[in-house]
């Protein structure tokens, strides 16, 4: 997965609970904001002891664990958590690029690791992969809204039982809308999320693709995809018919 790749499975309506054990304020803040925005429930623990306690009390679906903690190192925390809960996926954050650290992390029971500085998008992808693997709070691969069925694995879309052929961009747009019903996306956000952070073109391209998408899924007023003038677009499944 590249930073600017078309990560289409954007977010989790599942509301998986994530425990972040990290002492750097700025990092916990953006993780909290970002993960919440993606639909996860986030709890922050600022040191190892609190982290172990939180892990016991809240039984999270996934733990993000920093190796460098003020009171004890992440390996020890990881070992302690594993002693109680053998299942919970643990994603380690390391600052060192040395292989020994990664190997050690995986040895003490971490399921995956990311090296700082990491891409948030990659973190999301790892979280989804870990959640899927662990069988907890799985993102559904089939999204159904009214008579539209979208399969994220086969990347096929059916409208009233008939297959609709979409371009990758249109597919990504539709998936994003279906995963976040009623959320208003500005054109800038859509550009960043679908076209990539470094896309420097005009936001009009969003309007063009939305218009094509509407045509293909036969979106007639009152529309599923509605325009909020001066703001952006949102998806309203309930009032579709």
């Amino acid at each position, binding site marked *: 997965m590249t930073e600017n790749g078309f990560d289409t499975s954007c977010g989790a309506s599942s509301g998986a609970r994530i425990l972040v054990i990290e002492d*750097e304020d700025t990092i916990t803040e953006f993780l909290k904001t*970002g993960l919440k925005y993606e639909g996860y429930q986030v709890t922050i623990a600022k040191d190892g002891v609190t982290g172990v306690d939180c892990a016991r009390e809240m039984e999270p679906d996934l733990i993000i664990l920093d190796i460098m903690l003020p009171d004890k190192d992440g390996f020890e925390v990881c070992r302690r958590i594993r002693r109680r809960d053998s299942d919970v996926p643990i994603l380690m954050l390391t600052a060192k690029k040395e292989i020994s650290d990664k190997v050690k992390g995986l040895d003490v029971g971490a399921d995956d690791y990311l090296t*700082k*500085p*990491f891409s948030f998008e990659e973190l999301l992808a790892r979280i989804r992969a870990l959640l899927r693997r662990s069988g907890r709070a799985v993102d559904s691969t089939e999204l159904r809204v009214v008579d539209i069925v979208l399969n994220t694995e086969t990347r096929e879309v059916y409208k009233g039982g008939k297959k609709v052929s979409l371009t990758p961009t249109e597919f990504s747009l539709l998936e994003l809308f279906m995963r976040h019903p009623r959320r*208003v*996306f500005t054109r*800038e*956000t859509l550009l960043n999320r679908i076209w990539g952070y470094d896309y420097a073109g005009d936001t009009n391209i969003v309007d063009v693709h939305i218009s094509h998408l509407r045509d293909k899924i036969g979106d007639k007023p009152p529309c599923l995809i509605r325009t909020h003038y001066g703001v952006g677009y949102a998806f309203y499944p309930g009032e579709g018919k």
Partner: protein
Amino acid sequence: MWKKLSLRTRLTILYAGLLALLLTILGVTFFIDTRNLLIENTASHIRATAKPIIEHWLYGENLSSQAIEGTKKKPDSKYLKKISRQLARDLTSRNVVAIVLDKNGKVIANGKVLEEEPAPVSPNPFYYRRAFSGENEVTYILSTDNKNVLVLLIPLRSAPGSDHVLGVVQLSSPLTPVERILYRHGLTLAVGTLITLILGTALGLLLISSALSELRHMIATCQSITEGRMDQRVHLPQRSDEVGQLAQAFNRMVERLEASFSAQRRFVASAAHELRTPLTALRGSLEVLMRGAQDDPATVAHLCHGMYREVLRLSKLCEELLDLAKLEISENVQKEKVVLKEFVNEFEEQARVLSQEREISILEGPSVSLKADPNMLKQILFDLLQNAIQHTGRNDRIALGWKLGDNGVDIWVEDNGHGILAEDLPHIFEPFYQGKKVSECGEHHKGSGLGLTLVKAMVEAHGGSIEVRSEVNRGTTFLIKLPFE
């Protein structure tokens, strides 16, 4: 050209040259000596043979039997003329030919009769006059036609020991036999010298090679170190000569270099690590903003605030890294006269602002002045004070003072805060060292990890040193020893 030759070749050439010179001098001396000895020997042999014959003819029975008129039984020139032929003949042999000269230098008799007898050489007036005036041992060598002839002159006296010289006998003998011996001798010497020289040079080459083989080993080691294998060392059998000392000095140097390289590597690794955290926060925050958080003003403000903090942290880290790099160059220390009392008084007010509610006391020492960079000195005190503030509670005490030390001033900064763990104490001046925290100081303060490293570097740039004493829950004392100059 000479300088381009290898040390081994040069040493061998020098060694061989010296050997050749010595052998030549020795050979030539020996040769000349032998020649002189042989000639002298020949000369004295000829004289010894001639003496009885001359005495026989001059003072023997002959004189009495052929007594001339008068009663004096003393030979005179007439008598000499009479006997000269027989005398010369008797003195002549296969190797020696004799001629008799009268007092005018005229040849009055020639002993050569037979073909195989050598021809006499013509008399040299310079020599025979000397003989005529009574000198007994006149001997010289005459070189003619590539032949050397030994010439001996014997004065003929009227009576043994008398000053009256009647004539002179000139005995001449070719030096051919002596020269044959000398030629053999010379040949033996030359061949011997040559053999000795060749053997000596070979041996010298061997010795020099073995002495230099360790140098070549060191060259090979140097090359492999140049290729980046810093763990290489010169392994030599224990020896205390210059090569051994060189090897030891070399090993020490490489060890020092390796240590400083790995310190540098560790430093860079730690610095990179320190950069990662703010970069992670910045990158993550930006991504979260771009993924949609940008649409919520409250979140934007929140994340921006955090990002700004991280940027400040990065800037501070950059500045301190630059300061540290600058300190490596001692010219950056601009020393001037600092009167300590005035200096600390100026500093006091800022210190009070910084220390907030903490009690800060200045304990003035003797009035001294020293040569220091005032900006750096201020920075040192400021950093130590900052450090003390970080490790004390709001109602703790901080004290600053100075006293005279050995050949300088000892400035101390003391607090009664949390103290530093004994296991952390040796490492606190290391860059980015994060000690185990004794207790949380309430406000979560994190420095760049370079503050004390910078303080130590600044003190050392002044030629001073810094010491730290600490006891957990009792407090910490930093002691800076600065020289006067």
